[in-house]
């Protein structure tokens, strides 16, 4: 039996170019489709239309009203909680303090029956309405824990 001489092996050269090409194409694809998604969250509100809401049960707790008045430029001019105008640099903080004292959230998660109606001027910038909703619906304590206050928030019907 004759053995084949194994000393003369062929020098195999791997073609790296196609692999590098495809690797770079993949990289370019991923780089261009990469998108940083910033965290977003929702305030859920349930607002049935007037026809269906008349049939709904009337809550025993009185409706709280928050009025947001705007300047002609759409900036916040005044915040009113019920009949009380909230003065100072941080009216929404005062609004939250009043709601907390009214509901008494020390013992629990707040009042689920309480409803707050926001009556905002038409041209008010939406960020102030969002501030009002934030002040009404809850707060974050120093430990970063979220506490709920009023869950039922709605907008007053448009006066137009």
């Amino acid at each position, binding site marked *: 039996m004759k053995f084949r001489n194994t000393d003369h092996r062929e020098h195999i050269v791997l073609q790296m170019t196609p692999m590098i090409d495809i690797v770079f194409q993949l*990289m370019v694809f991923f780089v261009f489709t990469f998108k940083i998604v910033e965290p977003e969250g929702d305030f859920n509100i349930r607002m049935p239309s007037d026809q269906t809401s008349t049939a709904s049960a009337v809550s025993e707790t009185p409706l709280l009203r928050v009025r947001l008045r705007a300047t002609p430029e759409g900036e916040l001019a005044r915040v009113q909680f019920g009949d009380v105008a909230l003065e100072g640099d941080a009216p929404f903080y005062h609004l939250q303090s009043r709601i907390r004292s009214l509901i008494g959230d020390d013992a629990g998660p707040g009042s689920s029956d309480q409803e707050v109606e926001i009556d905002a001027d038409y041209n008010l*910038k939406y*960020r102030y309405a969002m501030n009002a909703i*934030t002040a009404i619906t809850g707060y974050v304590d120093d430990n970063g824990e979220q506490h709920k206050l009023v869950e039922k928030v709605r907008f007053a019907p448009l006066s137009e």
Partner: protein
Amino acid sequence: MRIQQRGPQGVVEGDLTPMIDMAFLLIAFFMFVINFSEVEQDQRVTLPASELARPPEAPYEQPLTIHLTDNDHFIYGGKELLTIGALRSELLQETQIIQRLTTKKVADVTVIIRADEDAKTGMVQRVIQICQQLGFEKFALRGQWTKDHTIGEG
């Protein structure tokens, strides 16, 4: 002057291994962080910030997302709509699709409203109003989550 004769030039092969390693690492990184889900975000809308705007724990079932820009334009289904009448007709078509082709009720569909922080609150209310007229009841007002306190401290 005597010119030095160069010897036989061999093929210079650069070591490609570190570069390929790096490229594969980058690909692996992008593959892990890429998000193919349909994120309803639009660069034309800057959301108002709120510390309570935490992402929902469970995604909504087939929500409708309406964007409202600061110049009172609406973006719905990828189309920019200039008037609220155009938005209404688009939503009317959507309700007809929901009623005819799905078993869901219109009242069970959540309408996500992504309004710009400088948009008019009254315009947001008008969007809610026309949605109510078409039978929608659930609304989600979207905000940008922030760790800062947005309402100030007295």
